[in-house]
C-alpha cells in the first residue's frame, strides 16, 4: 500500500473501528469559498473529504491568508481536535464544492477514552497523517525545483 493510500480512512482504521467512527459522522456539503474553521478557534469538529478540494491557510496580518496546503478526496481535515488545547493551528476554506463526512470531536474523544483499542487506532491514524504532512512540508522546504546548488552548473 502506498504511503498516501495508507492515510485514507478505508485503510487507516480496522473495519470495526472505521464502522464505529462512520456511524457518528454526518454527510455535509459546502459551497466554494466556505470557511470551515479559523486559526485560533475551538477545534470541536473534523472532516473527511469525499469530494472536492479545500485549502489550509495561515493568518498573516495585513495580507490575504497564504495557502500552505490543499487537501482532496479521502483526506482528513483537522487534527487539532485530538490534541490539547484543542485549538485550530490553521484555517480551512473550500476551493471547490466539497462533500464530506463531519464528526463531532468531543464525541470521538470520549469514544477514544472509553475504548482504548479504538483510541489507539484513531491516534495512530491521525499521527500518520501528521507525519506525512510534516514530511511533505520538509520536502517542500528543500526547494527541489529551484536551481541546483553547488558549482559547475553548465
Amino acid at each position: 500500500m502506498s504511503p498516501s493510500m495508507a492515510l485514507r480512512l478505508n485503510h487507516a482504521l480496522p473495519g470495526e473501528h472505521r464502522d464505529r467512527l462512520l456511524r457518528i459522522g454526518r454527510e455535509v456539503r459546502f459551497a466554494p469559498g466556505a470557511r470551515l474553521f479559523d486559526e485560533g478557534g475551538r477545534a470541536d469538529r473534523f472532516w473527511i473529504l469525499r469530494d472536492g478540494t479545500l485549502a489550509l491557510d495561515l493568518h498573516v496580518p495585513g495580507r490575504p491568508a497564504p495557502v500552505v496546503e490543499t487537501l482532496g478526496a479521502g483526506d482528513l481535515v483537522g487534527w487539532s481536535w485530538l490534541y490539547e488545547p484543542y485549538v485550530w493551528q490553521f484555517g480551512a476554506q473550500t476551493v471547490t464544492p466539497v462533500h464530506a463526512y463531519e464528526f463531532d470531536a468531543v464525541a470521538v474523544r470520549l469514544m477514544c477514552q472509553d475504548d482504548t483499542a479504538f483510541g489507539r487506532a484513531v491516534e495512530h491514524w491521525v499521527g500518520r497523517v501528521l507525519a506525512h504532512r510534516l514530511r511533505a512540508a520538509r520536502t517542500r522546504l528543500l526547494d527541489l525545483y529551484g536551481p541546483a546548488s553547488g558549482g559547475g552548473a553548465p
Partner: protein
Amino acid sequence: MTNLPVPYRVVARRPETADTVTLRLEPVADALGDFAPGQFAMVHCFGRGEIPVSVSSVQSTGGLAHTVRAVGAVSAGLCEARTAEVVGIRGPFGTGWELERARGRDVVVVAGGIGLAPLRPLILRALAEPEAYGRVNVLIGARTPADLIGREEVAGWRTAYTGVTVDRPDEDWRGDVGLVTDLLGRAHLTPSDAWGFVCGPEPMIRATARELVARGMPPDRIRVSLERNMRCATGHCGHCQLGPLLLCRDGPVVDWQRAEPLLSVREL
C-alpha cells in the same frame, strides 16, 4: 548522428519563466537524424560551450525545440540567444520514452519543474492518438505559479486528468498547493495496467516512482529521466556514469526496475 555540431538557426524564442526560455530551431542546411521524445541533444553556444538538453518538440521538418533554464554560463548564453542566431547541435543521443510500449493502457505523466519540457512531446503524441492509449493523466509540480512552463498549452490539453500543484502559491493562485505525489490519488488510471513517465528533480522522481509501485504499477512500466554530467554524449568519457550505466548512452530515460537500486546507493 554526428560528433560535430551542426548549425541550427533560432527561428523563435519564447520566454517561459523569468529564467527559462524555449528556443525553436531549424537546420541551416541538413538536419540531424530524427529525435525521439526523451532523447537529448548537445546544444552548443558558440564561444561558451555546450550542454545536454532534451528535446521539448520534434517537428517533421527537422526542426527542434529546446527548453533551457539559465543556471550557468552556457545555459545563460542560450537563453539570451535571439532570433536568427545560430547554435550548434549534436545528436540525437540517448534513449527515448518509448511511449508506443504503453499502447492500449492508461498513462500517467508526472513532471516536476522544467521536467515538463522533455515530457511535452510524449504528451502531445499520446493526446494525438486518443484511440491508441487509455486514459492520459498529467501531473505537474512547480516551485511557484511563476515557475510553471507552458501554462496556456497545458490548460488546453484534453487529458483524463490534469493536476497542477505548487510549493509556494502567490495571492492569485487558485490551484493546488503541495507535493505532486499527493495528486496521484486523483488520477484516473488502473495502476497495475498503466505506464508511468516521470521527469523532475531526483528526490521527486524517487518519491513518485515509489508511490506508483506501491499503488500497483510494475516497476518496469515506470520510465524516469535521469540527469548526470554529460560531456561527450557518446559513452566514452564516463562523466555521466551511474553504476553500470552511462546515462548519455543507456539513458537518460531508464526504467525504474533498473534505476531504483542505483538511486539507493549513496555513493552513486
